[in-house]
């Protein structure tokens, strides 16, 4: 028989029971929708991780005082008690290492900002001009303070867009205006380019940068003594070099701090690239897990198809017998039922795909959840629904094809 007629037979059987066909497909609809949504959410999370860590600055090493906790260079304790083992000279020495593009020491402390009646509570960072390079920040208007201003302890600051909006109103020009930081008046000399929200949900424009000495002595106060710093941001000149720079930097600091072989470091270095890798790996695992759970519902959908196809074979036993009497080969019957199962499954898969994509977009819009639709999820989900129809349609179709025509014709 002709293939087109086989398709007609399958389509007729599906249209003959619209409600039943819809309910049969529903399992696959839900399964595919779940898989598509889960993979979209997973991919979105991966992209968020990338942008979150990338947003801190590229090729970045973060040096903090105190030993790292546990093996593998994980997150570090940075609170009081972890010691104040880093200082300005360490930062300067690191800056002279080969392959280092910028070495920026930094201190920070919470402070109340006030100007012309408005006020805003935030953290103020004391940095050197190299900080912009290390953190991939750029000046939108005005300028950054220079080395001399920093050294002289001039009371000037560069602020982010959020600070501009909160203290002076959106769109206004704050250059030359004064802001009281705690009790100390500072002059605004520059505004940073907006970076928006970070991948971690932090507002990256809620930022105030002042010269390191001034901020250290006037704002951070007693928590940081002398020429100590809390963090040194080190930018490697290129990505391939970052591991070597990290090693050189560690050796340099061990030497400077007179740490003997076998003794623990009194500082720790976070390599943002390796942290990103680790986080992405864990997000991937998590996504895989979600997709696997979703795939189970796809299999359950397949079982639903098998169930209904078995019912259909029983119901249509006489029809099958008749078709055989009229000259249908066993394979004609087999393919008719297999095609019916596959069609139900693939239609379900297509609807599920649309629902999954729609659901993903909706979640991104309403839930502020990072969602990225993977292009490969379209052929893969359709392919899988086809496979489900094939696998779970096989047994009922085989049963239909094996019927004895005489017995089948006698059935009521």
């Amino acid at each position, binding site marked *: *028989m*002709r293939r087109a*007629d086989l398709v007609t037979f399958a389509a*007729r059987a599906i249209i*003959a029971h619209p409600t039943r066909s819809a309910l049969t497909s529903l399992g696959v609809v839900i399964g595919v929708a779940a898989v598509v949504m889960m993979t979209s959410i997973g991919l979105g999370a991966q992209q968020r991780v990338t942008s979150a860590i990338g947003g801190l600055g590229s090729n970045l090493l973060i040096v903090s005082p105190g030993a790292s906790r546990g093996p593998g260079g994980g997150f570090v304790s940075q609170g009081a008690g972890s010691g104040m083992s880093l200082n300005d000279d360490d930062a300067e020495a690191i800056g002279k290492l080969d392959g280092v593009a910028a070495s920026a020491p930094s201190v920070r402390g919470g402070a109340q900002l006030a100007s012309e009646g408005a006020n805003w509570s935030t953290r103020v960072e004391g940095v050197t001009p190299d900080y912009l390079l290390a953190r991939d920040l750029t000046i939108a208007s005005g300028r950054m303070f220079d080395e001399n201003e920093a050294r002289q302890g001039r009371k000037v600051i560069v602020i982010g867009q959020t600070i501009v909006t909160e203290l002076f109103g959106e769109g206004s020009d704050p250059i030359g205006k004064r802001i009281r930081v705690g009790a100390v008046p500072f002059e605004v000399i520059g505004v940073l380019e907006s970076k928006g929200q970070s991948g971690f949900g932090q507002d990256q424009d809620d930022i105030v940068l002042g010269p390191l000495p001034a901020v250290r002595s006037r704002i951070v106060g007693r928590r940081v003594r002398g020429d100590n710093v809390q963090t040194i941001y080190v930018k490697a000149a290129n990505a391939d070099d970052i591991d070597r720079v990290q090693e050189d930097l560690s050796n340099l600091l061990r030497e400077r701090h007179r740490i003997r072989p076998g003794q623990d470091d009194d500082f720790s270095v976070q390599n943002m690239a390796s942290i990103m890798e680790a986080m992405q790996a864990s997000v991937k695992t998590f996504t895989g897990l979600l997709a696997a759970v979703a795939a189970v519902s796809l299999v359950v959908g397949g079982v639903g198809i098998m169930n209904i196809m078995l019912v259909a074979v029983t119901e249509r036993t*006489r*029809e099958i017998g*008749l*078709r*055989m*009497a*009229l*000259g*249908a*080969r*066993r*394979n*004609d019957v087999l393919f008719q039922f297999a095609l019916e199962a596959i069609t139900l499954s693939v239609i379900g898969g297509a609807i599920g795909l649309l629902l999954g994509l729609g659901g993903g977009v909706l979640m991104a819009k309403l839930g502020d959840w990072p969602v990225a639709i993977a292009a490969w999820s379209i052929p893969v989900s359709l392919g899988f629904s086809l496979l489900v129809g094939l696998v779970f349609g096989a047994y009922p179709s085989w049963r239909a094809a094996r019927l004895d*025509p*005489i017995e089948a*014709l006698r059935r009521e």
Partner: protein
Amino acid sequence: MIEVRDLEKIYQMGEETVAALAGVSLTIERGEHVAITGASGSGKSTLMNLLGGLDRPTRGTYRFDGEDVGAFNDDDLADFRNRRIGFVFQSFQLLPRLSALQNVELPMVYAGLPPVERRARAAALLERVGLGARTGHRPTQMSGGQQQRVAIARALANSPDLLLADEPTGALDSQTGQDVLALFRELNAEGLTLLIVTHDAKVADQARRSIVFSDGLIIRDEREPDREAR
């Protein structure tokens, strides 16, 4: 055309073996009009199933136009049923969701005929059985007599060599039954070989040859060439 030698069909019913056919030999020539009668369980339906290629004998040979049907595989048998045999059943066996035309088309679909061709032929066949105006009707919208005519048109779809009818009037009242039998006679007069299984003596009387079965054996085989003249 049909040559059957020592045909046996034995069923295993638990411990017992039942011989539905206990060694039947029979020859049917092209153009014959044969009625097979006998009590239920006498083996007449079993013979029909074997002749129609729906079943295989336990022993014996079945030749159709010289071909050994016993040696056919499943696909050969399907094609044999499709092209050489037309079935008419007591309960019509029409597919309720298809129109009369689509029902008649069905054997031609399995023969692989293109749609235009088979539609034209199906319409012509329905015209031939007197249902030219009802091609679009569903079986449920038709009387029993009309349904059986559709079934006959379907049986003729691939111009079979042999038409097998199992109690074709069993579900019809006597008038429509007579109409169907008249149609059979016409078809036979046009050269179609007919084999009708029935337990109705009146139906058997219309045939030109009468075979009577009992306990899986032929007990009487009469040709009555004068019957048509009566």
